[in-house]
């Protein structure tokens, strides 16, 4: 069952130069994908591809000069993009949990962990103090924090990175949201801590049949913890599908370059050029946005690539998707 359906989301950066010219950057271009109940969806792509911007657009967290100019994001029958701020506030943190990247800056340094967890509950519903504290302790225990009663009194600076990230996870989950959006939830954490946090996330998603969107640049995380994946490049979803389909038969040249660049598949000394600068969002190439970096670029790439459906929800935006499907990297 679909929990969140993002359809043709478009976000622009609109700025005015000193000469009073209006400059528009198309930061998100017709982004569409879904998150279903009981599944974790991975959103991958390089820095500046628009991953976090997608989450911010959906959650109404954009700041000027960014603004949503088109599309919809339907959650529970309501379009989040047109929701009045008061209703959005009601949903955010209650039905939709958010875990942001940096645990150090996302916790209030002047508020004990327990108080923050209580505050989180009371922001949405009147809750008896004792009940709220009990729930906070249970939640800390659930995210794997030892001695939760004692940790309730801890200050954020007393926590290690892994512990702080778990507290953020507890904050996002304490109101039992139906959807969780996690922006780089394990970046910067040690691998053994990362493993524990992702195991926990998967367990909670399954138990409560929630949906989760993980924004990450770690393809290993996607391969082992997500059911489906969407690959972004320059503000567009260039490929999406089940993790098995996208990793086994990557069919967009960008996805293929991305997979080839992972240390596990990288062959040193091949001399193959895998990267390149991201396109200028103020001046995107006409047609396929990836064409300036694409190994297979042809004349036809100056026309917009069609969305090619390779079956079972494996969709690719490339003129050559069918040719590339199933070819070795």
């Amino acid at each position: 069952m679909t929990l969140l359906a993002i359809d043709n989301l478009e976000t622009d950066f609109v700025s005015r130069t000193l000469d009073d010219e209006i400059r528009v950057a198309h930061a998100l271009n017709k982004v569409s994908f879904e998150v279903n109940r009981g599944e974790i969806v991975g959103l991958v792509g390089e820095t500046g591809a628009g991953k976090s911007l997608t989450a911010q657009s959906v959650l109404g967290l954009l700041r000027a000069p960014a603004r949503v100019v088109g599309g919809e994001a339907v959650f529970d029958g309501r379009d989040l993009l047109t929701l009045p701020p008061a209703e959005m506030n009601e949903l955010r943190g209650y039905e939709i949990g958010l875990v942001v990247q940096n645990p150090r800056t996302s916790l209030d340094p002047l508020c004990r962990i327990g108080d923050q967890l209580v505050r989180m509950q009371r922001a949405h519903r009147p809750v008896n103090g004792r009940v709220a504290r009990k729930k906070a302790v249970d939640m800390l225990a659930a995210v794997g924090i030892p001695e939760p009663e004692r940790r309730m009194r801890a200050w954020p600076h007393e926590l290690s990175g892994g512990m702080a990230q778990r507290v953020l996870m507890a904050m996002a989950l304490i109101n039992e949201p139906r959807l969780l959006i996690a922006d780089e939830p394990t970046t910067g954490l040690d691998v053994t801590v990362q493993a524990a946090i992702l195991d926990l996330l998967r367990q909670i998603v399954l138990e409560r049949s929630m949906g989760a969107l993980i924004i990450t640049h770690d393809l290993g995380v996607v391969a082992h913890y997500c059911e489906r994946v969407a690959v972004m490049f320059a503000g567009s979803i260039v490929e999406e599908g089940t993790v098995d389909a996208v990793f086994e038969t990557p069919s967009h040249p960008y996805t293929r370059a991305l997979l080839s660049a992972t240390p596990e598949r990288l062959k040193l000394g091949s001399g193959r050029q895998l990267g390149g600068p991201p396109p200028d969002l103020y001046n995107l190439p006409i047609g396929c946005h990836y064409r300036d970096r694409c190994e297979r670029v042809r004349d036809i790439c100056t026309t917009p690539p069609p969305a090619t459906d390779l079956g079972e929800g494996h969709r690719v935006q490339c003129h050559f998707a069918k040719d590339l499907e199933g070819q070795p990297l």
Partner: protein
Amino acid sequence: MNAIGDTDQTTATPLAERRPILTARDLVKEFDVGGATLHAVNDVNFTIRQGEIVGMVGESGSGKSTIGRLVLSLLKQTSGDVTFDGENLASLSDKALRALRARMQIVFQDPWSALNPRMSVGRQIGEPLLLHTNLSRSERRQRVERLAERVRLPAKFLSRTPAELSGGQLQRVCIARAIATEPELVVLDEPTSSLDLSVRAGILELLAELRRELGVAMLFISHDLGTVKLISDRIIVLYLGTIVEEGPASLVFGAPAHPYTQALMSAHLPPNPRAPLKRHVLEGEVPSPINLPKGCRFASRCPVALPECSDSLPPLVATGEEDRRAACIRIADGGNRLNL
């Protein structure tokens, strides 16, 4: 000294027979933290041979970066010796040490803070030449241009300031600066951790090429296991400032011996959904380096620990396979294998 790019070291002596360029002996580093002593590095011994890439892995707080700074004498050790090409760094005068710095360099994780934001990148690449050589201004400029070419940085960027370059380009600047004086050892402290995948691939490609062509040895510090496995000849695994395992990359990754190495490797997620995961999630937290456990540092979290593991620190001994050493008393009785 050979000019940059003029030599090919691929046909040189096998790694194991080469001369050690750097030796760390009984290296100890303690920090004073508000009256208490933090034991960051404890009796660490290792060698880096000419042209060898040694990968150093371990989690935050394991002492990786501290060791990287100790071997370059950027930090003073509490005890123990660092020998660079036969010279004990501690015995050198400031002047002699400064001269030696031309032969050992460092590249940091974050190129944005490693470069002067107000100086052109070309001048920054040339600075080591200004400090360590007698080259004329025009010779230096030529050399900087060749270095830029060497690290595939278009010459037009040389007159720009760091703010005008991307992260990958800045890291190339840092690498060019590090190899400007043709050092024999470069310490790389998480050089690719802040970079995107494709940019990272380009940097790794470049480092492998530099090693091949310049024969420069590298201490590659990283927590990214995939990257370390790809680039390193030998691996050193640290836990709480102590080496728990050391050996050829293929062996340490393929058949880790120490229970901690096994747990660490099992937490690595290869970007292939079909790759079977045999996960062992470690319980508990890393003990405090202020209050080090008496015996094996890993015993409190080790699933195969025996009571005697907490009695005394296990020595780092040869495991019998190739050139591998590990510090675990359970290897002898075969009980070191985790149930993965």
